[in-house]
């Protein structure tokens, strides 16, 4: 534990600024500035409040939006799945009863909580932000401390606006240099997870730094922070800088005028001090990162597109060999094969990792003047109604539709297959989402995580392939 005078990290500073009190054993009561709610992990929390006769302590620090279960097809129709409908109706009843601000399903501002929060300026630098969803880490891209919580904690925050937390350890991931053509924030993050493993960040908060991270736009930084949880860390963050301030300025819920200036002055103080201590440090050379994807059923099963799928013979550890064997069989792959050239059945461009306008532009650039291979089901699911609207204004929807993509309404969709958008048994999918767990996109589905441009390339070639081959001058 650091002394107050010693150099502090970004995480230490935000943490210190939110401690209400510290208990004897070091557990802190941490104040929460923003609490986002969605329909899947909140009903039992509201039920708890109701049973105890407690109000929501600060509706003005809370915001709700339905995303996991929402249909991404025609919204004028009733929601077919009874249980999904009940969950959404329950959220609507709860926000009404407890006075929580909410974007309804038919609002063009509706979307995935982790896209909507930053887009609206509901999530801001320097804040503590929580949501009953592990990818809350996304908001750390703004220079906030943002992390996912369980439903009991959702109830605790609703009732008290605080959480009982222990300070995490600091981990620095530094990515230096310049990424090559066809390489994106997603590839950087896959490379990081490939290096740290999915448990490498357990107990840590990751700060992303280095020239390659500084060079990323906010969408790219959100992609990094989003998948911190896949590296085992509860939160990921990037120190706020001019890119951040320019992004935040003018957003509907951001401070305005003098309050904005006051906020920026504070936000500028949030960078890690020189000499601040990190418990773990990882350094990557951006120039070495290639367009990448996953071959297996854990996000750490990462390889470059020009690499070979591992073989159980490569390891002397019998448990590891067994895991590789099991994974290859689940994924329908052979040890040592190339992934490039492997046919796909589906392509999913969406999710809180990669569904922002920048992601759709990158995908559209590959799709333009090409056609989706007829055997492939390809869909684009924008992260919010506003992203969808912006894309339509830029004519991106036309590029996707003309090529044969489905152009859908905002929501989580095939990222987790809670709504009707699911993979069928043993279908292979190039997906811009964040989890390739067994059954994640539908029972027995086979997911390859990759960037939007790599997913677009898979759609138009019908196979997993190196996006650089479709980019002029990239090779």
């Amino acid at each position, binding site marked *: 534990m650091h002394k107050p005078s010693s150099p502090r990290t970004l995480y230490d500073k935000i943490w210190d600024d939110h401690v209400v009190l510290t208990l004897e054993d070091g557990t802190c009561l941490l104040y929460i500035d923003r609490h986002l709610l969605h329909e899947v992990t909140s009903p039992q929390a509201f039920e708890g409040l109701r049973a105890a006769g407690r109000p929501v302590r600060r509706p003005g620090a809370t915001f709700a939006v339905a995303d996991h279960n929402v249909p991404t097809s025609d919204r004028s129709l009733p929601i077919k799945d009874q249980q999904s409908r009940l*969950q959404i109706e329950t959220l609507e009843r709860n926000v009404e009863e407890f006075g929580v601000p909410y974007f309804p399903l038919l609002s063009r501002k509706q979307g995935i909580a982790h896209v909507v929060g930053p887009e609206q300026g509901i999530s801001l630098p320097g804040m503590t932000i929580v949501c009953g969803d592990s990818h809350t880490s996304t908001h750390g891209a703004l220079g906030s401390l943002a992390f996912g919580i369980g439903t009991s904690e959702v109830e605790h925050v609703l009732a008290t606006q605080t959480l009982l937390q222990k300070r995490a350890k600091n981990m620095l991931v530094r990515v230096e240099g310049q990424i090559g053509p066809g390489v994106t924030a997603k590839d950087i993050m896959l490379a990081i997870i490939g290096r740290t493993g999915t448990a490498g960040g357990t107990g840590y908060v990751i700060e992303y730094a280095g020239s390659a991270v500084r060079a990323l736009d906010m969408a790219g930084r959100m992609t990094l922070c989003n998948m911190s949880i896949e590296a085992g860390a509860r939160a990921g963050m990037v120190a706020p800088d001019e890119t951040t301030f320019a992004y935040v300025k003018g957003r509907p819920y951001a401070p305005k005028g003098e309050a904005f200036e006051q906020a920026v002055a504070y936000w500028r103080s949030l960078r890690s001090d020189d000499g601040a201590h990190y418990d773990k440090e990882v350094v990557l050379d951006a120039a070495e990162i290639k367009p990448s994807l996953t071959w297996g059923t854990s996000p750490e099963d990462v390889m470059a597109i020009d690499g070979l799928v591992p073989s159980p013979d490569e390891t002397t550890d019998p448990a590891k060999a067994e895991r590789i064997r099991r994974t290859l069989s689940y994924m329908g792959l052979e040890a040592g094969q190339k992934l490039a050239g492997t046919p796909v059945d589906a392509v999913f461009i969406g999710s809180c990792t990669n569904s922002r306008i920048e992601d759709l532009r990158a995908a559209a650039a590959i799709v333009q003047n090409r056609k989706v291979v007829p055997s492939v089901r390809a869909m684009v699911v924008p992260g919010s109604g506003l992203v969808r609207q912006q894309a339509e204004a830029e004519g991106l929807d036309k590029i996707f539709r003309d090529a044969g993509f489905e152009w859908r309404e905002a929501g989580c969709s095939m990222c987790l297959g809670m709504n009707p958008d699911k993979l069928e048994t043993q279908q292979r999918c190039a997906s811009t989402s964040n989890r390739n767990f067994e059954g994640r996109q539908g029972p027995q589905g086979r997911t390859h995580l990759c960037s939007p441009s790599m997913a677009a390339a898979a759609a138009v070639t019908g196979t997993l392939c190196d996006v650089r081959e479709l980019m002029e001058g990239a090779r």
Partner: protein
Amino acid sequence: MEKFTRLTTVAAPLPQENIDTDQIIPARFLKTIQRTGLGKHLFADQRYDEQGNEKPDFVLNKPAYRKAGILITLDNLGCGSSREHAPWALQDFGIRCVIAPSIADIFHSNCFKNGLLPIRLPLDICETLMDDARQGENARLTVDLEKQQIIRPDGETIPFDVDPFWRHNLLEGLDNISQTLLREGEIEQFEQRANRAWIPSTEGENS
């Protein structure tokens, strides 16, 4: 919350790494607005075939482990989604304690909040306990939270660490929210700090 003091029960061995919460309970079973009744969906994709019949090879379907109260796994248990449905499903099935070499952070704290004790122990010890568990029905383990030790079927004891805050909460079955609300005065003081003035309300756009 249900108290946890001492538990003597059968332990189920599940020697897998990276058991994510999507495996513990797949997303399609999250469309509930209740906490209860999820035990039947625990490990659904490993436990049942496509017709919904039990797969006899899966550990929790074997006669010796149908009433298991402890689950022992390999590294990185509970990674992935924050869904509290995972501990709810374990709890509803009858599991009160999980043991693994490493346990993902959110799942770890979700367990405590539901009276389920998560224990992190080095891999070799987990493997010893896993071997005990493999002996089946009569190889009971005792988990004593008060003394912070596990008693093996042969009587040997293995100490474990647990966060003192959560140990106290589990032993007493305390409800965190009522405890925190006792500190309301301090929360209000915090809210009035001047350096928080720039933070806008979510009630109505701030234009």
